[in-house]
């Protein structure tokens, strides 16, 4: 978070050096920066949920067991969902590429369901939560090594406003 003002400042300097009307551009840059800051710092924002609470938990190879670290993140999600009742969540389960397509879809369902059941057990109404799975179809890291696989074996809680659903 602390690097953000520096980036904004550097942007300002560049713009000032290259432009005869620096104030107009500087104002724009600050506005955009303020908006991003507000999202991250606003505890009711989806951005806060994704970045500060944590929208995902990771799993060991071929398991859907929640780790202690995962449960801590999910406890944070429970608190957020309880304070922000206007939001629904779809939990997306994912697998790494080391497995066959159909099985990985089922494994992803095990993972998203494990998260859903945990959130429900801590008091989030089941009606606000749906679970799906993308199997191995949506990796976020593309290397064929454990360092990437570990990030891809995940369940991501994707929130959306109930009024938009």
């Amino acid at each position, binding site marked *: 978070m602390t690097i953000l003002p520096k980036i904004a400042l550097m942007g300002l300097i560049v713009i000032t050096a290259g432009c005869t009307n620096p104030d107009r551009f500087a104002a724009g840059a600050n506005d955009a920066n303020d908006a991003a800051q507000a999202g991250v710092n606003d505890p009711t924002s989806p951005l806060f949920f994704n970045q500060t609470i944590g929208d995902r938990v990771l799993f060991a190879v071929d398991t*859907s067991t929640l780790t202690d670290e995962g449960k801590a993140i999910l406890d944070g999600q429970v608190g957020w969902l309880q304070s922000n009742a206007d939001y629904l969540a779809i939990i997306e389960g994912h697998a790494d590429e080391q497995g066959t397509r*159909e099985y990985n879809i089922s494994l992803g369902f095990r993972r998203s*369901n494990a998260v859903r059941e945990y959130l429900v057990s801590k008091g989030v109404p089941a009606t606000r939560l749906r679970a799906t799975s993308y199997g191995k179809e949506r990796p976020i890291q593309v290397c064929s090594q454990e360092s990437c696989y570990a990030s891809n074996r995940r369940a991501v809680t994707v929130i959306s406003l109930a009024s938009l659903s």
Partner: protein
Amino acid sequence: MKRFLIALVALMLAGPVLAQSGPLRLTITDGVIEPLPFAVPSFEPENAEAAQVAADITRLVALDLSGTGLFRETPASAFISAHSSFAQTVAYPDWRAINAQAMISGAVTVSGNQLIVKFRLYDVFSGTEMGGGLQFAGTVDGWRRMAHKVADAAYSRITGEGGYFDSRIVFVSESGPKDNRQKRLAIMDFDGANMQFLTDSSALVLAPRFSPTGDRVLYTSFASGFPRINVLDVTSVGTRQLQTADGEMAFSPRFSRDGTQVIYSLANGGNTDIYRGDIASGASTRLTSAPSIETAPSLSPDGSQIVFESDRSGTQQMYIMSASGGDARRISFGEGRYATPVWSPRGDLIAFTKQNAGRFHIGVMRTDGSEERLLTASFLDEGPTWSPNGRVIMFMRETQGAGGTSSLYSVDVSGRNLKPVPLPNGASDPSWGPLQP
């Protein structure tokens, strides 16, 4: 295995001097074989318009046959006789002298967009014609199909088995990097020609499966954000969602042998089981009820049994149960995991994906689990599909690493003749359709 695979008759290996004692027959057994030499003199163009297409058809017939690995073309440069006329008498000694065991003769007529192809097949060493002459009528645009039909007839007469050249494959065409891959359904001839897209890339689509007659395709779509089964009409390219009870989270579909029902997997919470649904009414029946993952069902050719994968033992293994559900018996007991079983059209073999020690294999075993044989090995081989005659398996191979891409390969059920299917884009999840009428 001996019933299926090829072994040349000993006579064929004896060389050009010896005559056969019986008619030409390539009997398929397990032994490593010398491909059977054949000659295809250029098909006779019966009018001027037919000249180019006659030459193209001749080349494709030769390519189809030699592409099987079971036949080897004797080049035209070795010919003693030209056999430039379809009607002329065959100069058998000239073909024997260059050791061509079979000779294929043809003639082509073009009128407007109509194409007529005639062909005859000769057993050189017996000095006789094999079967009668055949004639196929089609369109000039569809000349490849006419060539495939000639090659199928020749293949079938020599091996005594059905052919597979005039068939199509539905698959997933892929483009883009691994973390933003676009997938579209596509259809192609068995050799990769005439590829056409069936869907756009707006939604993730997986694992298309041909109907028994090739008129429809079942596939899994993520258009809603949840896997659902769609059925697509191949001719109109119209698509509709399959109505089954709680159809959300349904995937891994296959048609029943009569094309009226679908067997598929349904995820309910973290559990996945196998169901059978009626395509017209949407009524469905649950066939498995274990708390484990049951998926990838495939019916036996007579429709009485289902082979599927389950991790009820702790890892993925293959099981067979009655088509109406009930007790299942495990058939895979080797090291590693066994997945994506597919029953062969002949009924006696199961093709599968095996994962062991960090490698993937395509393999086959008998339905009782005996005689397991691995046909391939790579970083990721997956998803076998059988040619209509049960002789060739096509599958997906994905390469390793950040730039990894998928492509289709075919391999003879004996493990020989592994080769890529030439396609412009990445490809996965092939499903081989029937021989076309």
